Structure formats: structure tokens, C-alpha cells
């Protein structure tokens, strides 16, 4: 994306980050809650985490299938509710707004074939 496009995307996604996630991050920090561990803890005998379910159910195969933003909001809310993240589930409308704006920006653009060669593509 060009720097102009970057600015437009920042405008589309920025409110989600600035107005929803950062206040949430501050609240979590104030409560001493970390989203995930950031360093070793030698008191742990094992770092393996037991999965909640060992196999995919039929419903799992369709839970991420989104046809429009309303569908995205519903399914994302369900996903977060199932994980116990009710605070995030309550914010799906903000995610939906960001999705609408981002979709409109990217619809006009051909996707890039080039990967950044210096960082693992993880999102």
C-alpha cells in the first residue's frame, strides 16, 4: 500500500485501536492481567497447554464463515463469548465498523504478491 493508503487504513482501523483496545489494555494492566505470558516461568514443569477440545466438531468448520459484516460481528462475538472474553465480545460493533472501512479500501486494490522478506507472515 502507498503511504496515502496507509494513512487511510490508519483512519479506518485507528479508532478500534485507540478508542477500544488501548483503554482495554490499560484496564487489564491495572488489574495485573496479561493477555499471554511473555517470558519463562521456571516454576512450570511443562509449558504444554491442554486443549479444551481434542477434535474439531461439525460446528467448528462453519464458525468462521462470514458472508458480510453483520455475519462477522455475530460470529466474532460468539467466538469471544465461547472463550470467556465478554469484554471483547461487547466491542464487535467497533470491529464491524473497522471491517467496513477496511473492506472499502482494499476492494479497489489488487492484493500484493510480494511478502516482506524480513518478517514471518503471521497475520
Amino acid at each position, binding site marked *: 500500500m502507498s503511504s496515502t493508503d496507509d494513512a487511510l487504513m490508519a483512519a479506518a482501523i485507528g479508532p478500534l*485501536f485507540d478508542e477500544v483496545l488501548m483503554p482495554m*489494555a490499560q484496564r487489564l494492566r491495572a488489574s495485573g492481567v496479561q493477555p499471554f505470558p511473555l517470558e519463562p516461568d521456571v516454576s512450570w514443569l511443562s*509449558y504444554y497447554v491442554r486443549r479444551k477440545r481434542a477434535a474439531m466438531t461439525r460446528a467448528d468448520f462453519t464458525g468462521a*464463515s462470514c458472508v458480510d459484516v453483520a455475519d462477522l460481528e455475530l460470529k466474532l462475538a460468539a467466538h469471544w463469548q465461547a472463550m470467556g472474553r465478554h469484554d471483547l465480545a461487547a466491542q464487535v460493533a467497533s470491529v464491524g465498523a473497522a471491517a467496513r472501512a477496511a473492506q472499502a479500501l482494499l476492494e479497489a486494490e489488487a492484493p500484493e*504478491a510480494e511478502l516482506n522478506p524480513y518478517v514471518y507472515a503471521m497475520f
Partner: protein
Amino acid sequence: MSNTILGISAFYHDAAAALVRDGVIVAAAQEERFTRKKHDPRFPINAINYCLEEGFVDAADLDAVIFYDNPLATFDRVVENALAAGEEGREQFLKAAGQILGDKVWVNEHARRAMGSLGREGQVLFAEHHMAHAASAFYPSPFERAAILTIDGVGEWATTSLGAGDGKELRLFSEINYPHSLGLLYSAFTYFCGFKVNSGEYKLMGLAPYGEPRYYEAIRNHLIDVRDDGSYRLDTSYFGYLSGMVMTGQRFADLFGGPARVPEAPITRREMDLAASVQKLTEEIMLRTARHLRSITGESKLVMAGGVALNCVANGKLVAEGIFDEVWIQPAAGDAGGALGAALLAEHVYFERPRTVAVAGKDAQQGSYLGPAFSSSEVLAFVNRHAYPHTQMADQAERLALVAGALAEGKIVGWFSGRMEFGPRSLGARSILGDPRSPTAQETMNLKIKYRESFRPFAPSVLRERCAEYFELDCESPYMLLIAPLREERRIAMDRVHFDDGDDDMLAMINQARSDVPAITHVDYSARVQTVDAETNPEYHALIRAFEALTGCGMLVNTSFNVRGEPIVCTPEDAYRCFVRTEMDLLVLEDVILWRHDQPALIEQEDWRKTYELD
């Protein structure tokens, strides 16, 4: 009733499509082979079209279309990562969330635009990333039941998963989650040593034999804590990927005595030793994990997938340790294989259809020859259309004798035969071949074909029945996923004095004769072996037999059919273009022979050396 399923992977690296019918793999291919963009991550329209054509199926008649990853779960990780990283992670979040919310979550729309239909389910199904990897490893394996290990950079959250399969049942019971990742750790060192991430890991692995694991303790003491069961956790303060767009942070550089190596700068002893150190750690983790997995599952067989399963040095050590009686690794162990795994997962888990394990211990991967083939008629139409001088040699014995003779004379041969390979390795369908006995073959192939100077040797394709004469390997290795030591009696002592005294010139080392098959022998006397059997690839096997008849040597040098930086060739046109851009002597397109000295001068509009980035 027949069941046809299309699996798709896309958006991260190595987009691909795979078609499975009644549990049998009909077709699979990476998008990069069609678009000629290495590791092309875009929605694989071309690979999908190929799969549908190969399967004689319309999209509307597909029983399911399935994607290999859950974008909502990935978005959850991106959100949690932003909560952890705080303001520092703003730029990364804007980019990541923009891409997911604006593009990657709308897989249904991508599929509809590509195919006009979402098949009979009316919507795309979604696998879990590590479930797709696990399925790609277990279902095509020759095992009725097995332990399962998947290790990669990251899926949605999981980076390492442990499980077991039995018949059509597949379970993953424990995992390690982001940001703690062996794949990301290895990629961090890949970046730090000046190689590209996702393609340079092989180079880091190939660099390791030059070094000593001097930094192993520093890595264990500062970067990662490894438990007895192979589980691990990183100290993320050393890494940059949580909040930024680089893999490592300032603390990482301080720990290893300075900044990351600039790409293409001379490789120093530090990089060699870093490579040796992280390789030693990776092997240790994999061995501990394997022992733990054996003890908790009681299974005697192991299957593996995920990008880290492409570390064939670690794989070789794992097999040699004998922790499991047998090991099978998905040849397309990275994200491309996720397309295949997702399709198989849909077949056996979503549709609950039974699984049939092939008899006589054979796997169902079909040699991984799952891509497009081109008939003799199509090849002739191509060469005639362009009036390229050629000879058709329909008689196999005559043709193979000619090719073997050329190889025995030290000629370099472009070999294009049958269905294209699925996965990162060339396995004798799209390969450049040479004589492994030649002391100059490696240098020649590097300079005249790959246009590189490389510290890495080439890899051998050896007749299965003669493998034990060359290598300390007592199992098959049809997919070039295992490193094995060359037998001692074939080794030649090297002069390491200058190198051990601190001269960093690796080429002086690699250019020494190290064995009676120097072109494929690494400086530690190891080789990345492909065993070739007559049943899986009869033409290739027959060629090596013809070479053996002339020379007594039952192997060939096999390197991928491409110039540096481009994907492996797919079509006769790709092959011809590569042929005339390099100094190969002979091109074999099915039963059509083309000699380099007969070909017209290549006139190109572009400087192809600038088209393809160095990798």
C-alpha cells in the same frame, strides 16, 4: 456416493489448492508455480483452476470447499497481541487488522469470485491451522495409527501441537501457543543471519555444519527455557515481532555482539556459529518432544508437518535416534500442505467418511507428483510453434541412454517428466541433473545454472536399492526430507587448517573433494537424500539405472529446476525459458530432446536477473 473436496491455503505464504475425491488426492499445486512469484500468498485462483480441471469437476459440484485456517481466531490473536504490546504495537495492529478485516476474513467472497460457486455446502468451511497440518501428515501416511507432531511459526494461536490419529479419528491434545514458537525462533535467527524469512531457513540449516554451537548456552540462558518434555517458552523481550515489523530486537543484537548481518554481506564465523547453535537447540527440542510424545501416546509411529518439519537435519537425527519405529513427514509440510490437510480433514472429520490406508506400507502421497503433466503432443506443439530445434525420441531405452551418456560426460540436464511435484523439493519431475562424481559439478551447477556461489552442496537422488551403499540410512527417503551421513568408506579427509584457524572462506571448504560423490556431500559428510523406487517414478528410476549402467554410480545430483529466486518450473515454456537463460547443456521435455548449442539466442525484453530477487 463420490465426495469431492477442494482445499485452499492462502494469505500468509505458499498459497495452494488441493483436490481430494473419496479420500484420494487427485491434484495439488502451489500458486507460485503458475504466477511465477515465489511464495505467492494470494488467493490461489490458478492452482484452483488446475485442480478443478484435473479432477474434471465444476465448482458447483464440489461437495465442499475448505480453507486451512480460521481467520477469526487469527484476528483474536492480533487483538490480544495489541493488548499485550500496547502503544508500541500500533503500526503492526493497523496493518494486521486492516488486512484481516479488509481482506482475509472474506474467504467466501474470494472463493465465489474465483470459482463462481461455493459448492454444495453453499459456504466455505474452515479448518483449524494445526488440524490441517496434522491431517496432511496423518491421512496420507502409511499408518493406521500414529502419534502426531506439528510445529510451525504460528497458526491461529498454536505453534506446536501434539496429538494422535487412529483410522479416521484425529485428535490434538496439547499445544504451545504464540508468542512462544520454535518456528519463529528459527526464523528470527534466519533474519539475524541475513537470510530471508520463510525461504532462508534452509540456508541457515545448511550453514550450521560450518560452525560450532558457541552460542547454545547463551540461547538457553537468555532466549528460551526448554523443559524435559520438549515444551518451551521464549523471553519475548529479545524479539521484535510482538510489536514491530522485524523479528529481533536490540537485546537480541546485544546478546550476540552486534547488529544483524546485512543480506548479501560476507558470512562470518558469528553467523556460522549462530546457525550451529540454533540448529542444535532445534534438534534437542524435537528429540525431547518426540520422546514425550512416545511416552504419552504409546504409539510406535510418528507423523509430522508444519514448516519446522522441513528441517531435514533434525528429521534425520530423529529417525536415527529410533524413538519411533517409523516416521512419515508430509512433503509439503509448510502452509501449502495445509490445503491438502484441510481437504482431508473435511473428508474424514466433517463428512465422517472412512479412511483407507494403502496396503504394503505405501503412503497415499503418490510420490507427491500431484501437479500438472504435459503430454508429448503438448510439448511438440510448444516447440514447433516456436520452431525450437529438437528431436523426439519415443523409444525410452534410447532416450535414457542418451541422457545418461550426457550426464556421464559431465553435462547438465534439465529434466521435465510427468506430474509436477507438490512441496518445496524437486523429486525428479522438474529437476536439473548432474553427475555427483564430478569434482567440478557443484561449482559448474552453481555458477552456470543457479548463478550463485553457495556454501551448500546439492542433493542426491539415489536408487532405493543402492542407498545403503552410499548412506547410513536404513529407511526410505522418497521426499528428500532426511539428512543422512555418507558412509565412512566413501569420505575423503578435508584440509580444515585454514578454516579452523579463523579463515571464514566457506567456498574453500566446499570446493574440496570430500568423498567419491563430492557434489552431494556437505562439509560434515552429510547429504539430503532422495531414494527413488521404480514403482513411484519409473521414468526417473530408469534414468538413474541407465546412468548406473554406464558409470557404476547409482545416483544423480538433483537440484530444483529454476533459476535463483524464481519458483520451480511448471510448464514446458517455463522449462525452456530457464534452460536458455542458463548454461544447461540438454533439456528433456518428456520424450523431446533439445540441445543448448542448437537453440536460437534468447531475446528478452527484461533482464531476468532483475526480475527475480535474490533469495
